[in-house]
């Protein structure tokens, strides 16, 4: 259960979210929609402890989010950021990176499992050994989505996961996310086709209260 209670957030000293409240049940999928710069990504950043709310409370599995609980919460989460410009050379390095952390070390997968997850998203196995600058942004987004599944966390936070995908690939991603039954998903998206497949859609205006 994720719960936002009367949250206000600022980004670069400007208030972007005011008095936002919502809750997400375990296994539920929720999509945050709204115009650019309205603070959708800030909601994910607040949930990950990257920004501290001006006021209000955030709860994850009945634990209040603060500096003492944040590490435990981050360990329950797989996070796909909007900006995918990583300083890694190959796709393999990108996939391997989170499995070096203590929280994920025991979840490392064989290449067979990685390749079959790639296939679910229409990616060929040979992409694994390619350089990141050889693949498109759309392919990178699908690689990241595969990584989200491989990390096998209870909560998935996805920031614009389909922004560079064509409609066919968006459908692939929708089916892929539906196959992850039992996972709690909070996504940020501009994509209407993508958003309509979520259990709940929350519209965020420039300064919003739900």
């Amino acid at each position, binding site marked *: 259960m994720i719960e936002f209670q009367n949250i206000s957030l600022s980004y670069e000293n400007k208030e972007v979210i005011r008095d936002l409240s919502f809750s997400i049940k375990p296994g539920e999928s929720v999509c945050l929609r709204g115009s650019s710069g309205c603070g959708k990504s800030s909601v994910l*950043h607040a949930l*990950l*402890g*990257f*920004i501290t709310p001006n006021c209000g409370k955030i709860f994850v599995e009945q634990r209040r989010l603060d*500096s*003492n609980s*944040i*590490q435990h919460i*981050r*360990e329950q*989460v*797989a*996070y796909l*950021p909007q*900006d*995918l*410009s*990583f*300083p890694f050379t190959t796709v393999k390095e990108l996939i391997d*990176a*989170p499995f*070096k*952390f*203590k*929280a*994920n070390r025991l979840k490392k997968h064989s290449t067979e499992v990685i390749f079959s997850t790639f296939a679910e998203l229409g990616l060929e196995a040979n992409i694994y050994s390619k350089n990141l600058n050889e693949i498109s942004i759309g392919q990178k987004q699908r690689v990241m989505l595969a990584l989200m599944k491989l*990390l096998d*966390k209870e909560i998935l*936070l996805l920031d614009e996961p389909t922004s560079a995908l064509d409609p066919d690939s968006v459908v692939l991603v929708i089916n892929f996310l539906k196959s992850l039954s039992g996972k709690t998903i909070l996504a940020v998206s501009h994509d209407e086709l993508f958003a309509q497949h979520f259990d709940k859609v929350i519209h965020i205006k420039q300064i919003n209260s739900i």
Partner: protein
Amino acid sequence: MDISYPQFFLGFVLLLIPVYFLQYYKTGLVKDTLFAAGRMTGQLFLIGLYLEYLFRLNSSLINLIWVLVMIVITAFTVVKRTNLSLKTVFLPVSMAILLSIILIAGFFLNFVLQLNSMFEARYFIPICGMILGNMLNACVISLSAYYSGIKREKTLYQFSLGNGATPTEAQHYFIRDALIKSLNPTIATMAVMGLIALPGTMTGQILGGSSPSIAIKYQIMIMIVIFAASVISVVITILLSSRNAFSKSGILKK
């Protein structure tokens, strides 16, 4: 062989050549060059007089205080050259340098040179001075690389935290990068030493009358001491400054 003052001033005649070219190409550097050369001469003469006095006095306590003052000056210089806050950097750099000096200079002077007292002025002060000068550069490069790296690669840092990394794990990549950037120049210098250039310590000792074989041994030891001290000071500086620079949630404070 000593250099007499007439010979010494004759050496300054060489400066006329760069001054001519700097003036000819209107670089605007003539005034700066003359000022820098004058300042260097003044500073080194003053230090020379002071060191002569320190060496004659040879008091462990005064030598120790002298090195502590040098450590404080080094830490202030790091703060100034990295543009980081005094609160974030000053204490960590001071502690890191002090610890490196105790460990590395202590080991070298006590166990390698096997001096009766490691605080003997003619060894303690020049060795610490050489280590400090190199640690200063290593700390400036590493701290700049570390903090600018975390700001530049914010996506990677947040991606790591958001996927279960502890702040220490998320900072690992940036510490590695800072180590590479700060130590590469020393490694490169070590690799070509003796081939491309004769290093300062060795040249100084040979000019001062030591045999080349003794000078070489000192030079090799000095390079190892400098390298070990630089690595230790860089790692400790980054780890200690991170405690001030990041919030408990691992977010870089502004």
